[in-house]
């Protein structure tokens, strides 16, 4: 028994050591050949990963839109604002109004109007033309088309597009994922209001720029770089905080370069981006273009792209894009098929650029949202609008490319249906407050336990610390992204972890009361308490598993995260109760405290000596 207990103690200390190490090293990077690489570098305290409500940022939920889009061209000048106001105030028969409105200009006096109308016999569909004519005069073009529920492939395309846009815009660690059938979640840490922190390096001792010079030069430089609506807050001698609407990474880059050339070396330049700009970028419909590329050198590193056709060849002219194996069935290719207008333009283009001389300098640039997907050389004059792009693709590459092109052909309109932003400052305050609250709470529990259970309370306190360390280490290693709600779940699990100790101690007390020695009371008390600890915690785990199962449809991350944190908490609390508390109690009993029962349960000692007969119930053997 004793050697088992010592072995157990060593195991516990080892586990604790690993957990402390996991938490102690802020950045962890373990790369053992043959095992998956482990890399943890969360930004929170102890290297934990923090959710948006603790670090600040924007959480956006987009839904692929269904409904009808109207392509309308007015004969006379109509401003966007007027059109929106009119559409919003429109009332049809039965006081019906247009829902889910989205309006965007697509040309001179030409607008794309998206509405929630689904059925073709909706009175609003026919009423819209009349109402707009009445308000704005003649309409030269009025086309409608129904937008249907997107397929999984289309959603994948949307996801790729958004990922591309978000990455270009330079916020750190964005999370973009498909959620349910037709939704996309975008999480942009630090993207609420744009704040640029600038710290100038120590000045050149020979010719330091004067403070007055900096004060006038900085706004000028920022404005020239393209900063809009900014305010400069002077934080220290050489430290500035610039709040602006601009989050564009290029603008920031320009600003940094000009500050270095015009003012002096920069020690720190950090930007947190703004949510409105992010939304404008994400909400755009994908734009796929085919351009004629003229290379200016052999490697085609410098080039000029020109539009082909009028209006230019674009995703609208494509009727299909899909991946398949090539004729010999070995490699993968992407097949494109243009519609009749597209075929004509494409035929004209390939006729010109597929000649042997032209192949040296000409390419076809396929551009998505201003980002190049691919720029193949045209090897043949393609007259029927069916073409095949080959390029040593593997299956996955060809599929991804086809999905991307397809998403530009049939863009899925997106609607922002939910948004939640927390400013970074507020997030860090919440984090600080909940940490303090957690510590205060834990401290009060320690005090209560020690006052009530004496020595055993100290054991409980130790095992609670152990519990907290292990749970945090697991949170870090999984990793769980901690949000405020998870802290709620974690706190409740602290309550449950104490519960296991209380159950054991109460049972122990009873055994002491009927006159057992401390050591045997501990053993018996523990084994009596165990079924309750086991069954009650299993029931909580069942609830967690059910929540995880439904989590996807319950507001996503929130419920899933709480369920995971509660599950981990409960599982670890069983482990600490079984191993740590029990083992510590045994150790205490053996190092000679076993005889001093009053250290553990003072009031029960008196009871044992005074009225030994008054036991709650006669105890039979088990």
């Amino acid at each position, binding site marked *: 028994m004793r050697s088992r207990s010592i072995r157990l103690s060593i195991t516990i200390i080892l586990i604790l050591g690993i957990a402390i190490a996991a938490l102690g090293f802020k950045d962890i990077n373990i790369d053992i050949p043959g095992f998956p690489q482990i890399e943890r570098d969360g930004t929170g305290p102890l290297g934990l990963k923090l959710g948006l409500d603790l670090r600040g940022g924007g959480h956006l939920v987009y839904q692929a839109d269904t409904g009808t889009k109207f392509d309308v061209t007015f004969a006379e000048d109509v401003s966007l604002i007027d059109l929106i106001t009119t559409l919003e105030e429109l009332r049809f028969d039965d006081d019906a109004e247009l829902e889910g409105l989205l309006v965007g200009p697509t040309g001179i006096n030409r607008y794309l109007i998206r509405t929630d109308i689904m059925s073709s016999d909706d009175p609003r569909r026919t009423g819209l033309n009349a109402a707009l004519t009445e308000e704005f005069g003649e309409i030269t073009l009025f086309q409608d088309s129904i937008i249907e529920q997107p397929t999984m492939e289309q959603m994948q395309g949307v996801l790729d597009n958004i990922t591309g846009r978000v990455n270009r815009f330079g916020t750190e660690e964005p999370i973009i994922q498909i959620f349910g059938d037709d939704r996309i979640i975008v999480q942009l840490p630090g993207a609420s209001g744009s704040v640029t922190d600038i710290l100038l390096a120590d000045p050149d001792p020979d010719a330091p720029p004067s403070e007055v010079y900096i004060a006038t030069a900085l706004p000028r430089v920022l404005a020239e770089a393209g900063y809009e609506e900014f305010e400069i807050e002077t934080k220290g001698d050489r430290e500035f905080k610039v709040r602006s609407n601009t989050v564009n990474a290029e603008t920031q880059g320009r600003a940094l370069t000009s500050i270095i050339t015009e003012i002096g070396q920069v020690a720190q330049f950090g930007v947190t981006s703004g949510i409105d700009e992010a939304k404008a970028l994400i909400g755009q419909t994908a734009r796929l273009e085919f351009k004629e590329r003229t290379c200016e050198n052999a490697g085609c590193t410098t080039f000029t792209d020109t539009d082909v056709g009028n209006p230019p060849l674009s995703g609208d002219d494509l009727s299909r894009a899909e991946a398949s194996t090539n004729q010999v069935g070995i490699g993968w290719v992407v097949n494109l098929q243009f519609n009749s207008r597209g075929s004509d333009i494409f035929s004209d283009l390939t006729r010109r650029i597929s000649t042997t001389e032209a192949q040296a300098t000409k390419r076809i640039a396929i551009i998505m949202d201003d980002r190049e997907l691919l720029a193949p050389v045209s090897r043949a004059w393609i007259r029927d609008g069916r073409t095949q792009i080959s390029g040593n693709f593997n299956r996955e590459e060809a599929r991804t490319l086809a999905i991307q092109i397809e998403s530009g052909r049939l863009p899925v309109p997106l609607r922002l249906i939910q948004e939640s932003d927390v*400013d970074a400052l507020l997030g860090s305050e919440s984090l600080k*407050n909940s940490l303090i609250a957690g510590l205060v709470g834990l401290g009060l529990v320690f005090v209560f336990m020690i006052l009530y259970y004496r020595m055993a309370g100290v054991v409980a306190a130790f095992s609670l610390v152990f519990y907290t360390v292990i749970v945090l280490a697991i949170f870090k290693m999984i990793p769980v992204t901690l949000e405020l709600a998870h802290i709620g779940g974690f706190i409740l699990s602290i309550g449950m972890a104490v519960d296991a100790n209380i159950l054991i101690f109460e049972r122990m007390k009873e055994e002491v009361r009927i006159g057992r020695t401390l050591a045997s009371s501990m053993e018996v008390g523990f084994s009596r308490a165990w079924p*309750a600890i086991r069954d009650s915690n299993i029931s909580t785990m*069942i609830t967690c598993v059910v929540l995880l199962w*439904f989590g996807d449809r319950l*507001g996503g991350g929130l419920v899933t995260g*709480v369920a995971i944190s509660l599950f981990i908490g409960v599982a670890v609390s069983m482990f600490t109760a079984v191993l740590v508390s029990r083992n510590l109690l045994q150790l205490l009993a053996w190092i000679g405290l076993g005889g001093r029962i009053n250290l553990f349960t003072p009031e029960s000692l008196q009871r044992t000596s005074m009225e030994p007969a008054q036991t709650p119930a006669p105890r039979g053997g088990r």
Partner: protein
Amino acid sequence: MLDIVGKRGWYFLISALVIVPGLISMIAAPGWITGDSGLKAGIDFSSGSVMNVTFRQAVEEESIRERMDELGHSEALIQRIGGTNFFIRTDVLQEAIGDAPSEREVIERDLEKFLGMERDRVEFDTVSPIVAHETVRTAFYALAAASVFIMFFVWYAFRRVPKAHRYGVSAILALMHDLLIILGIFSILGRVINLEVNSMFIVGLLIVAGYSVNDTIVVFDRIRENVSRHPDRDLAGTVNLSILESMGRSLNTSITTLVVLLAMLLIGGNSIRELLLVLAIGAVAGTYSSIFIASQYLVMWDRGEIGRFFKRSSSAAASSLMHLIGR
């Protein structure tokens, strides 16, 4: 020995004193009777925008109202959360269109300019009507599924005890009791102090479901142990003994849980106030129900009182309750 089981009518009466007003509040207009939820729905369930803002200096609700009226948001609901911290709820705010800034931007700039709002301490949420209702339905299904699984688990865990299924059913009834108490209290608070429920409330209900059964099982475990030790004893006596034996543990556990929750409620951030409130009510209700409700169901079932209770007409049911209390 303290006779807890004998006074079981009282416990149901005490629960009824909380649940019945809550139910009335849930049902009365605007409530179930008019097809509403009976709770004051936050934007998560009804759509709209919420800004949680802080000002540099003391500001009156009236001055914020004036600014919001000026900006064309006379629908705005303004509440002081504490100090210079305010909650402003509006209809869904317009996104930026072209060069025009978003309505949120306009409001923030205005409040900053005129009232000294701190623009880097804003929490903003907006929800469109699409999202609103599905969460509630899914939460309901999740609770129902969890209840069924737990019922079967408890049945299995207590299989050595006679009539084990009764333990499962009683644990679930106690869970429903706890959830009804939370729903009722929030419904009343919604009417009295305009407390809104959001998705954190749902999360809280789900966590409480886990906690409540956990607590009940600890008491049931005692009954299980005592029943197998004294199989010939009267169940009421065994339950009474078990409750007394596990009372200390039940109270201590709920005290420690409440202590941590209160510390969070007082010091922690505003954003999970509602979650903590649900958990705190849940912890108290859970402890109460595991001692005074769940185990009493077992006794009542054993004595056939439940069947009798439901067979009688409603007035007779009341007198039967009185009869129980009288004992």
